[in-house]
């Protein structure tokens, strides 16, 4: 294994090991509905509007510091602290049920429930009191346990003297345990390893960029823009209004010309636009290269290889575009709409690959040209700029048309939006001494600025030693989705089939429609959020069963899933007094001229943010 691979392996495996042994950081999600979810290692999804509570486990951090070479902690302290903390939680949790059981017993003589609650409370007390057992302990550990026993003995005597009922007695014992834990924590803090520090940071990664976000108490970043992803909005966004208009045109085209003809026209239109733009960009680049070849610096050895590579790429791309032009600007290249679309998408992908290679080689050439430019050679700068413009024009031509495809695949398969190397702790993240580090903080996702489902939130914890070299990190990544119940609006073209005789010719009539869907996501099953996306809701469709150019309102119930690629339902044409069934099939089609918009044949779903 080479050193780089070994380093990567270390970075990846160390946090997992630490986490498994003893959590350094406990994460809890508090959602907008007041629910709380412990974010254990089995959960990698949070609601997009939640607050994440981060709680540092100082004991585990101190242990880690010892593992990094710090002076050992006082004997038995860490173990006792863990045991008593756990027992304390158990005891505290038993108090209320015991009091309730007593109240019920006093009202109804329900002895069974009382015995059960008493049993739980007794077990909790026994857990607490095991820390008062000095047998087999010596030195500091024995003294610490002796002090706890004495405190507990006094509390038991006082509770007996006051003749307290069992619930209040347990509460008194829990309080003694709490005080003992505080004492132990103080002892631990006093012996906190010198020179060891922690850093805690958080980042949000969106499609566009990734940014560090503020963790109160741990950094000096400003708080981000407050942005709540709305849950209950049913109004159409501007983009959806635009899509609705396009859906209306599309439905009309399908009804008049048929689906296959409409799809063919759209593919042809998009292909022509791409080819035209690309051809122009390549001609510009070729002209710039020809001009440069006449300059003196073209003979520089360092430029020969990258220049040849770019020329070769341009030639290959021009040949490819010529083939595509012949294929798409003549008669239809496919016999059916389906094969036409499949073929078009495949061709676009080949073209995108060629553009990507050209862009890569242009980048290499430009770096060499930059060296020449520093020698004052103007031609190098001119060519560099011309190539950059051509590269951008080509990428834009394809991304405008294929961006939707890429987005869809990224959304479904959760392609990483993460550049881990960019997520280093900035100078704004404080190095906090182990003894004085806050016990925790809150990461309010609403205060992290604009984000959308599928974006990531990353939390990192680092522990550093005084020599500056030994540090280990813990990293948790969560994908933000709309997990809580929410409404989503979609616009689409549906195919409605009247259930009784109408003026509709053929089995289906295409019609633009608008749906309001109720949905919720999942914290444990990513595909529920990205692929299955089930939803049910109300569908409004502009029908024309009477075939008289006057729109008729259809109201229906719609079931939608697979990112709204599949929609089925039943509706009622209010004006024509006819029931109808409908379906919609959507594909993540590119922006194909007349079929523009996400999910061209079925409207894209827009969050109501």
């Amino acid at each position: 294994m080479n050193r780089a691979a070994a380093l990567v392996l270390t970075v990846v495996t160390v946090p997992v090991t630490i986490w498994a042994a003893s959590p350094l950081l406990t994460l809890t999600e508090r959602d907008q509905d007041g629910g709380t979810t412990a974010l254990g290692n089995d959960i990698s999804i949070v609601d997009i509007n939640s607050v994440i509570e981060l709680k540092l486990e100082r004991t585990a951090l101190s242990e880690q510091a010892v593992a990094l070479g710090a002076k050992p902690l006082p004997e038995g302290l860490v173990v006792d602290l863990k045991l008593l903390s756990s027992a304390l939680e158990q005891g505290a949790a038993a108090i209320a049920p015991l009091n309730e059981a007593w109240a019920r017993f006093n009202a109804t003589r329900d002895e069974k429930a009382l015995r059960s609650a008493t049993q739980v409370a007794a077990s909790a007390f026994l857990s607490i009191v095991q820390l008062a057992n000095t047998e087999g302990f010596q030195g500091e550990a024995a003294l610490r346990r002796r002090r706890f026993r004495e405190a507990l003995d006094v509390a038991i005597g006082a509770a007996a003297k006051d003749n307290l009922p069992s619930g209040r007695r347990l509460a008194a014992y829990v309080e003694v345990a709490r005080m003992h834990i505080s004492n132990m924590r103080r002892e631990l803090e006093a012996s906190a390893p010198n020179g060891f520090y922690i850093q805690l940071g958080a980042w949000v990664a969106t499609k566009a960029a990734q940014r560090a976000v503020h963790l109160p108490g741990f950094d000096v970043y400003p708080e981000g823009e407050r942005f709540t992803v709305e849950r209950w909005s049913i109004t159409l966004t501007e983009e959806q209004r635009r899509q609705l208009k396009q859906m209306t045109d599309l439905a009309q085209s399908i009804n008049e010309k048929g689906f296959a003809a409409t799809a063919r026209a759209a593919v042809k239109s998009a292909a022509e636009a791409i080819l035209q733009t690309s051809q122009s960009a390549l001609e510009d680049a070729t002209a710039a290269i020809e001009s440069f070849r006449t300059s003196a610096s073209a003979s520089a050895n360092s430029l020969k290889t990258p220049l040849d590579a770019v020329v070769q790429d341009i030639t290959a791309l021009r040949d490819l575009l010529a083939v595509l032009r012949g294929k798409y600007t003549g008669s239809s290249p496919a016999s059916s709409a389906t094969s036409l679309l499949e073929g078009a998408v495949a061709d676009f992908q080949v073209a995108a690959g060629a553009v990507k290679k050209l862009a890569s080689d242009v980048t290499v050439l430009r770096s060499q040209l930059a060296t020449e430019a520093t020698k004052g050679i103007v031609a190098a700068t001119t060519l560099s700029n011309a190539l950059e413009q051509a590269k951008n024009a080509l990428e834009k031509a394809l991304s405008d048309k294929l961006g939707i495809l890429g987005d869809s695949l990224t959304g479904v398969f959760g392609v990483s939006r993460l550049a881990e190397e960019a997520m280093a702790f900035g100078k704004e993240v404080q190095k906090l001494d182990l003894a004085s580090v806050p016990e925790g903080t809150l990461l309010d996702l609403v205060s992290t600025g604009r984000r959308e489902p599928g974006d990531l939130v990353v939390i990192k914890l680092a522990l550093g030693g005084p020599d500056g070299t030994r540090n280990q990190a813990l990293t948790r990544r969560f994908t933000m989705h709309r997990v809580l119940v929410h409404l989503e609006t979609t616009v689409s073209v549906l195919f409605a089939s009247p259930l009784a005789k109408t003026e509709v010719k053929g089995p289906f009539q295409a019609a633009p429609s608008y749906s309001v869907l109720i949905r919720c996501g999942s914290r444990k099953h990513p595909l529920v959020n990205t692929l299955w996306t089930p939803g049910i809701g109300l569908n409004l469709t502009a029908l024309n069963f009477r075939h008289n150019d006057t729109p008729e309102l259809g109201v229906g119930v719609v079931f939608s899933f697979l990112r709204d690629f599949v929609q089925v339902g039943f509706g009622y044409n209010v004006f024509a007094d006819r029931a109808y069934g409908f379906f919609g099939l959507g594909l993540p089609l590119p922006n194909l001229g007349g079929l523009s918009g996400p999910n061209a044949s079925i409207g894209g779903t827009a969050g109501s943010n």
Partner: protein
Amino acid sequence: MEFRKTTVLPLGNPAEAQRLLRRWIFDEPHIVFVALGEGAVAEALVARAGRLAGPDEEKRWVVWARSEKDIDDVIVQLNVDDAKKGAIRNGALAFSVSFGNEIADVVDRNDELDNVRVEIAYARAEAKG
């Protein structure tokens, strides 16, 4: 000494002693702290257990068997493992009995006889259910 929730078994009348003990264990199910023997240590233990028996409605009770032999026949009727039975025969100071008639804990002569130890005896019996 507090006898609010304590029954002292008679001496020299094993039948009556057993009847009284059976009453608290079998007839009126309680968590029973049975103190054994006589003397200052036993008296102090009985007093402490009585104080920790809780309010009247709580099902904790103390029975003081000054003669362990008198209640032998009852002990054999209880669910108890050999170790605990041996400890009782070898001069234990007390034992606690659960609602299910099981000897849950035995207080040994070497134990530290503080409030914590007595509360543990009660809790071990209560935890048996």
